[in-house]
């Protein structure tokens, strides 16, 4: 079992015919993900190693029953690509693209509110359910099937920590890189809720970063709704305070947003918080035994 991506994933790829799109799609397919379609305007009728290409997501969905979309289109077109998939009723959209203007994402956020599409990303490595399906760019070699769920804002920290879990023989149910953009889709809370409900997940890991208040809100949620053990890691204790955004920014986030405040909030919610990435695997092992 797993969350978000799995045996019933039928993947279409927006931007399949681009260099990165082709490379990662073929890697995902080689891993066992069912890749059913690509979408590139103007290239309908072509194929990429046997994967048929369509002009629109609606066409691709109608012809192939795709239920998941992975997006590799350039930043200036990526928000539109998310809207296209949502409008076509695709259930899960994984947007890998980095550098999307945040105003475009604010429109996406508004449109997705209350609609039946879940978004992962943008600027994220995607999600992998080891041994079953990989949608995105997480290197599957570092993963192994198992019962730990993992959600992270950072991509490379996913690779790093999953690698260490695997080295200790601790497998994963699903690893999700939610991306660190200011306005993004699925967050810690949605991922934790899914793991909490997933019978094949025994424990979850979340790794956060300075900025925003996603981790603080996750801590609240864990305190109230999560019964499975949670291990966390927060990066950025030593990060510079960053550019001051005027008074308004401080009013929005209050004293929240620092790594220390986040770690504290999580610990107060009963989460074991690692002090460096390598400690995560240790804490998981302790929690599982």
């Amino acid at each position, binding site marked *: 079992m797993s969350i978000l991506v799995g045996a019933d994933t039928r993947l279409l790829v927006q931007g399949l015919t681009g260099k990165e799109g082709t490379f990662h799609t073929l890697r995902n397919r080689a891993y066992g993900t069912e890749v059913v379609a690509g979408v590139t305007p103007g290239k309908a009728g072509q194929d990429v190693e046997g994967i048929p290409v369509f002009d629109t997501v609606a066409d691709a969905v109608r012809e192939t029953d795709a239920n998941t979309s992975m997006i590799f289109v350039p930043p200036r077109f990526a928000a539109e690509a998310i809207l296209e998939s949502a409008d076509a009723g695709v259930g899960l959209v994984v947007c890998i693209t980095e550098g999307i203007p945040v*105003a475009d994402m604010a*429109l996406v956020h*508004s449109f997705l509110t209350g609609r039946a599409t879940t978004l992962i990303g943008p600027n994220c490595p995607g999600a992998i359910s080891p041994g079953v399906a990989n949608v995105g760019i*997480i290197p599957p070699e570092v993963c192994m099937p198992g019962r730990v769920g993992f959600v*992270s804002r950072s991509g490379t920290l996913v690779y*790093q920590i999953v*690698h260490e879990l695997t080295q200790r023989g601790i497998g994963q149910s699903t690893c999700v890189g939610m991306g660190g953009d200011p*306005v993004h889709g699925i967050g810690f809370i949605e991922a934790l809720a899914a793991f909490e409900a997933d019978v094949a997940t025994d424990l979850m890991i979340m790794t956060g970063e300075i900025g925003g208040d996603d981790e603080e809100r996750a801590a609240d949620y864990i305190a109230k709704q999560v019964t499975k053990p949670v291990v966390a890691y927060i990066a*950025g204790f030593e990060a510079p305070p960053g550019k001051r955004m005027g008074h308004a920014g401080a009013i929005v986030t209050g004293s929240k947003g620092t790594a220390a405040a986040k770690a504290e909030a999580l610990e107060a919610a009963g989460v074991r918080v690692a002090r460096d990435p390598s400690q995560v695997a240790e804490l998981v092992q302790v929690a599982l035994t």
Partner: protein
Amino acid sequence: MDLYEHHGKELFRAHGIETPRGIVAESAEGAAEATRELGGSSVVKIQVQIGGRGKGGGVVLVDSPERAAEEAARMLGSDFMGHEVTQVLVEELLPIAHEFYTSMLLDRSTGDYLAMMTAEGGMDIEELARTRPQALRRVHVDAMLGLRAFHVRELIGTLPVGAREGAGDVLRRIYELVRERDATLVEVNPLVQLDDGSIVALDSKVTVDDNALFRHPDIEAYAEAFPIDPVQARANEQGLQYVKLEGNVGIIGNGAGLVMSTLDVVARAGARAANFLDVGGGASADQMATSLEVVLGDPSVKAVLINIFGGITRCDLVAEGVLGALERVEAGVPLVVRLDGTNAAQGRAILEAAAHPRIVSTATMLEAAERAASLANGAAA
């Protein structure tokens, strides 16, 4: 990108928001001349990419061109909270009847825009939000719905009746600016009503989304006025995220999370990072070489830690990039290299085969941090 006040006001005027008459000066004489043009008195304000200038002596009222020259001379070339001052803005003094505050920003926790306004413009706004939140109107604006008449009515609700229509008009123009120019923050503190009833933005703080600058070449060009840091410029050119810090361990890594994490681990190992440098995903040999040049160009660096976890990035290419860079750049300090993930074994084999005297290859991040910290501290001692 955080704009200078005078650039922000240029955007204000383009969107029909009134500002005081102002002249940018880059010399004491220029400030004096500007003050003369403005009638003999003025306010002289340093132009830097941060706020808090009022408290730091960055805003001074002067009553003569000579005083303007004096203040400008003091300001220009000085360092204001780490920012070099190369321009001042000289503005006319206006007869102010009321001071208000307004701002509009992209709120990452709700994914929409947050607009705020209060009649109490002289106050410290963070303090006001804490102590008397009812005096600060806050309205969330959904991006598809847009700023509606009812949002505006709500926002202007604490203002004197005679200022509401004008302030509402300013709010609509700010929203238009935010949406059309991809601003993630517009703050006006104070927004004032003059004796004649008109509403004027006395200050401007505008941040524009870096990801959207491709849509706004005119705003991107504002960066030409910013003081140039050659190291930073070099890094930016290669698409590297580089931030100078205070320590002596140079850091190179891939992915913001991993680099931040590396900073933390080095700190726990007893040293401090000299910089933050993210080579990004799919780092090429070329980027690796530039990264090393950038980091080694910092004289405070006593050791370098290269922490790569290969995902898209292939460790064999990283190893080749490091060796290639060392043919171009002379490394006067040790380089601790930790390679893991995609093709890590090949990468480590390449380094081993090269047997470069400056390179220390380690297997884990913790070990790498400890080696780098002790090398840097040893050198410092």
